[in-house]
């Protein structure tokens, strides 16, 4: 395993001589997003347990990775192509929390990504988003935009053919894109060791003719710096970058999963000790910028926001039967239109 780019150590101290692009103010903002993400996870998992929320894949443990990467983007021009575990990255990028929340409640219309928000829908078909993200980045350049695309993928997704084809094409067309690989050590129950014999996924970049880097994915400063470097390179015509963000899935695959069947508790506890949020709090406390009081205040504030979004989502209208036929074609083919009218007439 090659050494990871890192700045902020688990104990909250900074690597000797290391300096991040992230100043205290931005770090406080990052911390706020990370806490917001953690609290949202906790809340909706509780709701799901009460049968009031859909199947959900939390970002718990990966907040530095998710937030640090998103902070490097300019929501006004850049684009995010998610897999499904980067919820707070898309929210930071402008997707209202109530909109993405509505999706988990099975609301159709209310889950529509608003015009002007440069985010693609979550992708369930693992790695299918990568060739698409490459095409998007390529097309934005052809259209004369100076946009950069940040595409997310997991350690599991890195094994799909689409990973290879998407990255190779990006190298060939020098697409303005950052492939952000969250290596959280798991693909459902499948360990990262089973996923590939490579020492580091970042080594794959050389096989596509662009830069690859492995970063401590629980270190928001290091993630942010690596992401900024990559975004700048892409924006300046330097082509793609593959960032492997080495982190850990601290909760579970999703709310239907039970890691006790396959996860070594020791490995889990070691991961908790590398919690991405606590280390930032320790660091800021050392600077006198963080204490119980501030923590409590921020927690209340963020809980508030999350609750408001949840309420909006719950209040949003449920789908109607005819929505089955919505947004399939610009114009329904006659045969499908007939199926629709028969259906609405209570026929078969």
């Amino acid at each position: 395993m090659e050494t990871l780019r890192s700045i902020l150590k688990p104990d909250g101290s900074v690597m000797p001589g290391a300096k991040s692009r992230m100043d205290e103010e931005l770090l406080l903002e990052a911390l706020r997003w990370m806490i917001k993400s953690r609290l949202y996870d906790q809340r909706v998992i509780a709701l799901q347990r009460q049968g009031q929320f859909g199947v959900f894949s939390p970002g718990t443990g990966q907040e530095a990775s998710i937030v640090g990467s998103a902070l490097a983007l300019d929501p006004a021009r850049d684009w995010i192509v998610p897999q499904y575990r980067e919820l707070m990255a898309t929210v930071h990028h402008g997707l209202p929390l109530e909109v993405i929340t509505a999706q988990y409640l099975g609301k159709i219309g209310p889950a529509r990504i608003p015009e002007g928000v440069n985010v693609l829908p979550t992708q369930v078909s693992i790695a299918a988003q990568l060739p698409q993200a490459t095409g998007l980045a390529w097309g934005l350049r052809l259209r004369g935009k100076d946009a950069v695309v940040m595409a997310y993928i997991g350690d599991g997704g890195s094994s799909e053919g689409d990973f290879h084809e998407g990255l190779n094409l990006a190298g060939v067309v020098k697409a303005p894109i950052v492939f952000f690989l969250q290596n959280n050590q798991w693909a459902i129950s499948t360990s990262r060791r089973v996923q590939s014999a490579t020492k580091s996924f970042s080594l794959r970049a050389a096989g596509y003719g662009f830069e690859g880097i492995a970063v401590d994915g629980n270190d928001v400063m290091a993630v942010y710096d690596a992401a900024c470097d990559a975004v700048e390179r892409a924006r300046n015509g330097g082509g793609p970058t593959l960032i492997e963000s080495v982190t850990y899935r601290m909760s579970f695959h999703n709310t239907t999963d039970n890691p006790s069947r396959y996860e070594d508790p020791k490995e889990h506890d070691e991961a908790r000790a590398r919690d991405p949020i606590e280390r930032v709090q320790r660091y800021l406390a050392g600077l006198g910028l963080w204490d119980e009081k501030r923590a409590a205040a921020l927690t209340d504030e963020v809980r508030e926001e999350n609750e408001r979004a949840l309420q909006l989502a719950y209040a949003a209208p449920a789908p109607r039967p005819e929505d089955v036929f919505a947004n399939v074609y610009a114009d329904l083919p006659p045969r499908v239109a007939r199926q629709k009218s028969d259906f609405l007439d209570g026929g078969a």
Partner: protein
Amino acid sequence: MAVPEVPQRNIVEAINSALVEEMEADPRVMVLGLDVGKLGGVFRTTSGLVDRYGPERVVDTPLAEASIVGASLGLAIAGMVPVAEIQFLGFTAQAFHQIGPQLGKYRQRSRGRYHCQVTIRAPFGGGIKSPEFHSDAVEAQFVQTPGIKVVMPSNPYDAKGLLLEAIRDPDPVLFCEPDRLYRAARMEVPDGAYTVPFGKAVLAREGQHVTLVAWSAAVELCMRAAEQLAQEGVSAAVLDLRTLVPLDTETLCAQVAKTGRCVIVHEAPLSAGFGAEISATLMEEVFFDLDAPVARVGAFDVPFPAASLEDYYLPSVDRVVAAVRRAME
């Protein structure tokens, strides 16, 4: 002396039992796929296998469907008997070029020098509020790729017997499992090995007036529809095709000729679903015995919608009953 009781099993247990039987009997049999090891598969169909047979024969693979199928082809040529799991049938799309065009053609391409004793298991079907792709009923896509057998069990007994038949079949078999019924009612599923032959449709319910033709979870739907129709005085037979390739044309045609009326029910979208093949076959074989046009009930010709809409999208008892009523006019 009491007769030994036949154990009750649901489909998950029946499939697990079939895998255990064959792994015990034949050391060449191996299981590979996503999360089939310690987790025992996302539906637990392979539960316990890795503890019994070890990680060399029960293999968690990288997340790459085309290589799961492609490697199975090579493993078979090496003399292993792979039972590959594709986590959800919808994700056979990622392996599509390795299924029909490779598994299905390898015997022909090699002029019979090689064949592919490979079973691909995959759960599918709606009704359990799954995420996108997890419900897609794409079985008919593999009827269009000759060389692949397509098996669609509807109950625990058939699931075990058909899976053992599949694993022993010298040619590639796609074995589609109705996840909605995985843990539905148990039934008598004997211990030990037994097989259910391919290409033998079975009458799940007798009936005089109309024949409902179905496979997989749609059989259970038709049984419920038949119940309700019985209350209306309509006696509906339910024919379970069990396998689409090979297709039991004989039983199908004889049965429909008997009732003169037929409604085909499947979870796939209507257009070009396998129901079309059934209807076309009946057109060709028993046209003059038909008292009414053969009807089809399927999902609508749109992609599987959000889970919150699936009850509107999927064929329902009401829609089956309505179709039968029209067929009875």
